[in-house]
């Protein structure tokens, strides 16, 4: 099931062809390698634009990360923790 977390995370990020992609991140004491970015979208919060990334880890685990340029900071907003 999906769980909402909104945990601050450290994210290693690559900038390729003018776009930003998370490569790996540290969450709950472990390093998650991003195998694939499966979706991207953005949301405005006043003047700020929050950029979201749906990503898959190496074990088919699944997360949603949010980049807030105001910090700048990353937040892990949701994680899929296995079948409900």
């Amino acid at each position, binding site marked *: 099931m999906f769980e909402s977390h*909104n945990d*601050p995370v450290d994210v290693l990020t690559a900038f390729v062809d003018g776009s930003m992609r998370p490569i790996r991140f540290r969450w709950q004491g472990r390093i998650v390698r991003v195998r694939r970015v499966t979706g991207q*979208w953005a*949301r405005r919060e006043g*003047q*700020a634009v929050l950029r*979201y990334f*749906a990503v898959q880890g190496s074990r088919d685990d*699944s997360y949603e990360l949010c980049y807030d340029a105001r910090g700048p900071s990353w937040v892990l907003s949701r994680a899929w923790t296995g*079948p409900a």
Partner: protein
Amino acid sequence: MILLVDMDAFFASVEQAHHPHLRGRAVIVCGDPSRRGVVTAASYEARPFGVRAGMPLAEAKRLCPNAEYVEGNPRKYVEKSLELLEMFLGVTPDVEPFSVDEAFLDLKRLPGRGQTLESATEIARELQQRIWDRHGLGASIGVGTNKLIAKMASGVQKPRGITTLDEEKFRGVFWPQDVQALWGVGPKMSEHLKALGIATVGALAHAPRPVMEERFGVVGEHLIEAAWGRDRTAVIPYHEGVDPKSMGHEVTLPEDCRDPEFLEGTLLRLSDQVARRLRTDGFRGRTVTVKLRDFRFRTITRQRAIGIAIDDHGGIFEVARALWRENWKGEPVRLMGVSVSALEHTSEAQTELFAERERTKALQEAVDKVRDKLGEASIVPAGSLAHRRALGHVPFGAVSGRTAIDRRAKQGYGDGADPSPPDPTQVKPRLPRED
């Protein structure tokens, strides 16, 4: 030729595309799954269990307890819809978005292709494959000689179907069907038609025109033409735009409620949200509608036309509250909604020239500026605070950012600010705090 591209179980499919482990599983998109609400969308894997959009979440959980319940994210779906629109514009410049998950494509301007049903079907097949390859999403496509036929054809085979119909085939498929299968005939119209002995689309096609015109006016003639598969409506390219007919918001309450103060606070918040949308998009409206659903799922809508076009939450709330007080009999309420229709562009709308009105306008502009800068939750009518506390979230989801900042602060980063020394040239807006 016209195509109608209808994305299959769009919201649920986007979630499955973003989270591939959900593919093949029953996925139900809803509000906060831990709260009360309704099903927004159900994947095709959930539908055999009887789960449908609009069904109360509690019922869906009873029918399909092992489904994956995912909190929906409108922004995510709108963004995907825009990506799809870009793709459609690569096929033809004449694209009319019909909803977030449907679009008409007119192929008439394609050089050398798309002018026959066979050629249009080939284009539909290519497009369906490209949507799958690039986005991992299923689409059902109706191919027809006009918008009505394309629209109705798109629903014949789902998911991932392609159905091609001309007028003759349209009659073969739809004439035996219940009259409510016709695009534009809802449950109420269906009742009226059946009261006249018109039960099928075919019967509607052969209904006596004088009777239909007398009973339904110009709509009667239109219905008969539609039953024959005739439609002269043009595809309106998205860049030409179609003005909205109304704007509204509704909310399912956390629990059935009969507290007048709370319910009026809810109306105020809804009025505020509607007013904000009107102003953002440059509209004012002359009719306010209130929707109420009680604990027995009985729904009533009541509307009132007003003399001037308005876009301020106070004006909308005043009318909405009057309608509410006249029609609420004290039963526990499950859902409330407010909408404004009879819209005019702000530049065209006639306004009152009183000083009070000018003050209200200046206040609104100031409030809008604050919200534009800091977000929707930064400033709200005081009367809606109780409602917000009870719901535990604020409009437009702004709380997620704030929650993150709060957590960051707890982890030793101070009051949500960057831990590095502040740059005196940069003044960072603080995220709003509730209360």
